[in-house]
């Protein structure tokens, strides 16, 4: 893309590191820009900027996301982002996003085996004597490991061993299976925090633990026979979803819990409150102050959904070598989240995370630049998905992500090629690989095209199970398909246009395919992922001042 030519800021000299702009010579301007501040000046936020932006900019974006399947979710997300230099050393940036989610799909919940479980035939991995009739459309039970969870403030429960499948414990500390019946009034007595989770129906029959555990709790207090019709009635109690009953029923048939929320299904925007729509509001603000040899920045972010609130704080420092060929970044962040449920107003749990980030950006040559980042994150608190039937996760997770990015300038084309690779590993046993490449190819002056391909692959979490699996009483399990082994391929095309007068625009289209077949390693033996195709359009307009 052609460098932007300033027309009224000749030798404004707001900073000795600033570029001196010239109407007369784009080349000279470019050269000087490069010479005094690299990499990052006059470039939107990167983790390697070494000076405040010289211009203010405002971007307006609009994302339209949809899934290529019946009843898939859709997201419309207008967003705004600004960056304003307050002085030659200080800049402020922030944004605001409004996600509007509609539709629902059950793809997140474990598939396949659930259909079998719904039949009298036992699931293959479960001894027939221990297999109870798993009415799939019902959150039949929840395992309670929080013996002292009736504390006034439900602090994050003591983290279990990272091993997701704990050994059977002694009877005294054995988690109890707590059958709970959903109360539409929300006022039922709920003994502990985790067992407070909503249940769409009483347990059909209490599962017999596979592992040797304490004497099983008494059966459910509600009539044990629950069929689809009952489930249907139960859903009616939750609100006016008549128009969705057919879909709900279909999902029940598949072994998914009948659910009045798209949240179970993972949405971009998050949960919904009793309907097939939801919103998410998110905003953030960051201030960065630049000095000669380093910079410091602090940021705050907030988001709100019907059933999820988040407050994030971050600190970032950067320093660079005298020749500015190497930039080091160090960041710390914390996030204090509140987890709720739109189908159980009494659910109120915390989820806190801390991250440490370290990165280096290195100019390799006149045409090559490389960045490598390590990021360690630890999350503690309520990590179970409150909308999933088959979900009981450890209450802590540690992860390490290593991202390396390489950009090469193609002199003959005045374009560039980007290559990113990320390796990830966490305490839940998931390892993932992500590789992405993009080509920036000028078509005409002021017009650039950017084709891209991204491949992602992960193996399954140690405790991933298909829906309908009957776990031991103290066993972690999740049927969230995002924790299964799968792969995904995204192909995208973006058009970038300089519109003049400080305006630029872009339009992009991406098609994302996810499938268990796309995982090259670590495929789940049971209940892999449903194939899911998604697409998203993104339109953006930027004005620089």
């Amino acid at each position, binding site marked *: 893309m052609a460098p932007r030519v300033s027309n009224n800021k000749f030798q404004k000299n707001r900073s000795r590191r600033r570029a001196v702009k010239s109407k007369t010579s784009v080349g000279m301007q*470019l*050269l000087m820009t*490069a*010479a*005094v501040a*690299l*990499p990052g000046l*006059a*470039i*939107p*936020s*990167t*983790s*390697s900027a070494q000076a405040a932006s010289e211009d203010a900019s405002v971007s307006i974006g609009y994302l339209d996301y949809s899934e290529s399947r019946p009843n898939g979710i859709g997201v419309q997300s207008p*967003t705004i*982002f600004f960056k304003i230099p307050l002085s030659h050393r200080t800049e402020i940036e922030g944004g605001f996003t409004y996600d509007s989610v509609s539709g629902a799909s059950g793809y997140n919940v474990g598939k396949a085996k659930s259909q079998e479980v719904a039949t009298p035939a036992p699931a293959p991995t479960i001894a027939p004597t221990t297999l109870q009739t798993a009415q799939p459309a019902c959150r039949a039970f929840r395992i309670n490991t929080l013996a002292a969870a009736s504390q006034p403030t439900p602090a994050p429960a003591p983290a279990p061993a990272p091993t997701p499948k704990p050994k059977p414990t002694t009877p005294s500390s054995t988690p109890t299976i707590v059958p709970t019946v959903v109360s539409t009034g929300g006022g039922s007595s709920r003994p502990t925090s985790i067992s407070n989770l909503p249940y769409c129906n009483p347990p059909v029959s209490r599962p017999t633990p596979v592992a040797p555990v304490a004497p099983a709790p008494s059966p459910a207090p509600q009539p044990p026979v629950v069929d689809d019709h009952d489930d249907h009635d139960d859903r009616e109690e939750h609100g006016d979803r008549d128009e969705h009953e057919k879909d709900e029923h279909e999902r029940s048939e598949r072994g998914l819990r009948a659910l009045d929320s798209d949240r179970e299904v*993972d949405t*971009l925007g*998050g949960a919904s409150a009793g309907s097939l729509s939801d919103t*998410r509001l998110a905003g*953030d603000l*960051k201030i960065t102050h630049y000095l000669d040899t380093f910079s410091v920045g602090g940021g705050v*972010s*907030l988001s709100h*959904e019907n*059933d*999820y609130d*988040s407050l*994030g704080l*971050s600190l970032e420092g950067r320093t660079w070598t005298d020749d500015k*060929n*190497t930039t080091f970044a160090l960041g*710390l962040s914390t996030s204090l989240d509140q987890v709720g449920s739109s189908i159980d107003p009494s659910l109120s749990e915390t989820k806190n995370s801390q991250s440490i980030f370290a990165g*280096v*950006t*290195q*100019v*390799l040559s*006149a045409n090559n*630049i490389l960045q*490598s980042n390590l*990021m360690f994150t630890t999350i503690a608190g309520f990590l179970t998905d409150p909308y999933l039937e088959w979900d009981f996760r450890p209450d802590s997770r540690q992860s*390490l*992500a290593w991202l390396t990015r390489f*950009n090469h*300038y193609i002199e003959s084309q005045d374009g*560039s090629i980007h290559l990113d690779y990320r*390796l*990830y590993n*966490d305490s839940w046993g998931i390892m*993932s690989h992500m590789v992405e490449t993009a080509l*920036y190819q000028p078509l005409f002056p002021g017009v650039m095209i950017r084709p891209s391909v991204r491949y*992602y692959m*992960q193996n399954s*979490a140690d405790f991933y199970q298909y829906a309908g699996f009957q776990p031991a009483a103290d066993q972690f399990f999740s049927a969230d398909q*995002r924790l299964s082994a799968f792969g995904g391929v995204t192909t995208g095309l973006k058009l970038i246009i300089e519109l003049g007068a400080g305006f630029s625009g*872009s339009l992009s289209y991406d098609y994302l395919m996810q499938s268990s077949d796309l995982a090259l390693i670590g495929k789940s033996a049971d209940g892999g992922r449903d194939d899911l195709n998604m697409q*998203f359009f*993104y339109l*953006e307009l930027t004005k620089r001042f």
Partner: protein
Amino acid sequence: MKFISCACLSIALLLSACSPVQPWQKGNLAKSHMSFEPAALEARQRQHIYFSKEGTNGGYGVGGGGCGCN
């Protein structure tokens, strides 16, 4: 640990193997599309999608809001 060692080794090799690039040689690197995030806002939206659709995330930096979508 192996993970970290590998990363550190790579970075060390990276730092030692370069001949210094002079300021006047950086014109190409200064172009906007040579930035690691030429479109910060779009990158943010894109990461948000992957965050909600994949089992893992991270590595791009600190900051950003939480979401109940994962």
